[in-house]
């Protein structure tokens, strides 16, 4: 009897306890639900509060509004575009306070000015574009660490293809003036002729390659257009196989074939000792000199060492 009672009491107790537990769990879920509901409502309220609306922006900033309206950012058909969010205020922030104060600075609006922090400006764009595969490695790139922001190259309010502020290479030359200088030289890649762009070789959005090139090593990039140099050759030329930039200035040079200096001197930087390769090839050995030599005039060492990038025949690259 007592056992039964005890068991009954225990069962009752357990039932009570389970019931209490269930109640507590129920209360907990209800509380959480109410909490999150209120948070959502709060955010929604905040989301609506503070935004003035694009119509209001246009009232004072008609020129900017018109340029935005013509841009891809104003197209509702584009998933995730500002046109489907808060238009101008998607990037510049809620504008109610700005409007209430009659406009002007210091009202909490984000302005893409020269003084604004590059990282803050980039963060505005990355808020939507961060998951783009083209920006997956933006953090690795030199542009980010150098304080370049998206609006240095792109015009959010429209522009040329890909919303660029200017066409290549002028856009890149705005900062990379030394590259502009090299590309103006007599021996150059056809960049200023419009047959190549900087982005044919470089990824301005960052990556893993040196100098943000679109390859893991320099030679791999060069071989995409100059596959005949890839080999492998039976007889390889060490500096060629290791790095094309040992001998070439890829952006332009005063010397034929974009060489960093003129043969025979370029070659004698490594091969300046011996019999014929150890001689100084001076003005006397040119066409008009007292003793013209094949190692000097016309194409100098390449008059004979034609297969300088590698040969299937022999190790002096003569055949």
């Amino acid at each position, binding site marked *: 009897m007592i056992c039964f009672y005890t068991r009954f009491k225990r069962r009752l107790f357990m039932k009570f306890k389970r019931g209490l537990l269930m109640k507590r769990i129920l209360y907990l879920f209800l509380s959480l639900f109410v909490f999150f509901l209120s948070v959502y409502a709060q955010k929604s309220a905040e989301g609506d509060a503070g935004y003035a609306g694009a119509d209001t922006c246009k009232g004072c900033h008609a020129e900017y509004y018109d340029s935005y309206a013509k841009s891809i950012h104003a197209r509702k058909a584009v998933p995730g575009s500002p046109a489907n969010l808060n238009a101008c205020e998607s990037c510049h922030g809620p504008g109610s306070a700005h409007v209430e104060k009659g406009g002007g600075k210091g009202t909490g609006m984000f302005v893409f000015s*020269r003084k604004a922090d590059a990282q803050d400006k980039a963060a505005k764009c990355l808020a939507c574009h961060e998951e783009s595969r083209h920006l997956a490695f933006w953090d690795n790139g030199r542009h980010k*660490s150098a304080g370049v922001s998206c609006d240095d190259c792109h015009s959010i309010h429209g522009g040329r293809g890909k919303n660029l502020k200017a066409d290549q290479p002028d856009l890149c030359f705005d900062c990379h003036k030394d590259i502009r200088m090299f590309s103006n030289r007599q021996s150059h890649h056809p960049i200023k002729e419009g047959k190549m762009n900087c982005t044919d070789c470089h990824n301005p959005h960052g990556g893993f390659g040196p100098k943000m090139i679109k390859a893991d090593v320099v030679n791999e990039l060069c071989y995409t257009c100059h596959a005949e140099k890839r*080999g492998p*050759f039976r007889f390889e030329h060490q500096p060629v196989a290791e790095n094309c930039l040992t001998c070439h200035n890829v952006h332009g040079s005063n010397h034929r074939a974009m060489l960093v200096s003129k043969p025979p001197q370029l070659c004698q930087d490594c091969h300046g000792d011996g019999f014929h390769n150890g001689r100084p090839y001076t*003005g006397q050995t040119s066409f*008009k000199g007292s003793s013209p030599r094949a190692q000097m005039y016309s194409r100098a060492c390449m008059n004979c060492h034609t297969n300088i990038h590698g040969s*299937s025949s022999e190790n002096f690259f003569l055949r």
Partner: protein
Amino acid sequence: MMLIPFSAFADEAVFEGEVTAQGQLVHVSGNKANFNEYSDTEDGIYGAIGLRYEKDSYFMRFNASDIGYDTQKYTLDGGMWGKFKYDLFYNEIPHNITFGAKTFYSGAGDSSLNIKGDPDNVSTWHSFDYETERKRFGGGVKLDLLNPFFVDISAQTEKKEGIKPAGVNSGFARFTELPEPIDYRTDTFHIEGGYSKKPFFVSLSYDYSKFNNDDQALDFFNFINGVEDSLTLPPDNKYYKFGFKGAVFLPYNSKFSLNAGTARAKSQADSNNILDINHFSGKVDTTNVDMVLTSNPASFLDGKLFYRYYDRDNESDDVDENLSWIDRSLGGQFVFKLPASFRLTTGYTNRRTTYEDRFDAKKRTDDVYSADLSWSGLDFATFRVGYEYLHRSLDRDDTEAKADDDTIWRFDVAPGHRNIFKASVDLFPVDNLSLTVGYKYKKTDYEDRPLGEATTGLGLRDYKTDEVFIDASYAFAALAQIHGYFDYEKARSLQYGHSDSDATNWNVRQKEKTFDYGVGTDIFIIPKKLTLKVQYDYVRADGSADFNDFLGVLTPSGSDISDWDDYRLQAFSVRVMYDIMKSVSLTAGYVYEQFKLEDIQLEGYQYLPGGGSPSYLTGAYKDPNYNANVVFLALTYKF
């Protein structure tokens, strides 16, 4: 405040475009190939078309330029935003070297040359052009239908045809310049698939490239040696690479990225009976791994740590020298945003390259230190200074060069150090005026030699450059805009050589001064109706080489070179653009371009240098000077 109806943002169909027809007259005196090195500017009518269509989320663009000419280019791209994109293209790129070259061989451009002229009488030789043309076509598609999953596929074929200069020796003193045929085809394919959604990015890729050369050798009769001879040409090759890329966001605004790849290049070179060489199969495997950790844990600090590994393994059969190596880099970079608008970037990289069978180097080690400081405390100016120091050491133990006490140190591995200093200022005193001034100094010394090693220090000893850049632009309200630039570089190098036959050392000091400047103006005579654009650009280079030797016999008076790739290039253009009506505009213009080169390697050019025992040249790069005048009139219709 206007009420903007909701329909104003509805995506109505947009179809617009423009067609341009440009007639031009061209007069070139001098080297037409050099004037048209990468272009095809001649008398004629040039056409260009640009079309754009957009409706809802669908868009399409078509562009065509230089229709029918050697520089013609067509692109078609389009897609649906957020779903897919496609592109197709066709592009021709000429590269003209010399028109009217000469040879006593017939069959220029073929893989076999026959003598069909008197080698010692240039007037009997045949004329041909050193020129090549690339024809590139392909396309691709990017799929985002299953976003965040994506797939990118692209393929391209390039045909390159033409003739380029080559040369074959007959002993040490004589050679024959030949027209080498170019008949290349390169096919490439790329596919990448992956997933991109915070906090992960993952992709796998495959790249394939196949190079085919229709001519494996150039066979010819060697007139000097009196024998059948042959020059091997680039062998066919294939390349394929598997790659993996990944990134994951971590706490404290950090990100870890990984790039890994493995690739193989294989080549097949035919046997050559004339040269008595067997068939060759080349194989080179490469492996690379890159790891990068970036972090922005606080607003004032941005950091990056990286590690790179690259392994090249030459597994070709029957190679003379096994060029295999492993490259490892380890380093970091930190950006500090300091008070008072200062920004400091510091970096360090340690790079080690270990060679397997390089005769003069076992291990090369580079330590690179860098620091950059910028200040933007003023609204109208930003100042920057930077410094980089590289120290290179070389381990030559157990190499052939060490055993032979090799006296020359190849500069790509030679121990030494390099200093780079740069400074610039960007000024924006008023909204419509900008001015940039920059300076860069670089000095590389290859002078470090371990005690006990040969100290003759042959080869490149030092290399110095000074660079100055100036840029300015000013807009006079809506009336006109003026812009200009100036670049200057002075480069100096010192090189030592040793003549075995004279048992003495010599050296040469080379100098190059290059400056270029440009000035242009846009004058809005009638704003948005009539515009005048004028532009002038000038490039000038002056080089020299001064020789010295200890015996004083190798470099007698008259040895120094003052014409060492000295050239002037100037271009002037003026164009008037008139909008006849909203959809029609007329552009008239004139372009003048002049190029003048003075270079001792081409001055007094001879097809048969060497007197009674001549070598035989074809005129490659001879007489590169030109003057060109172009007058054009273009009509553009926009719709």
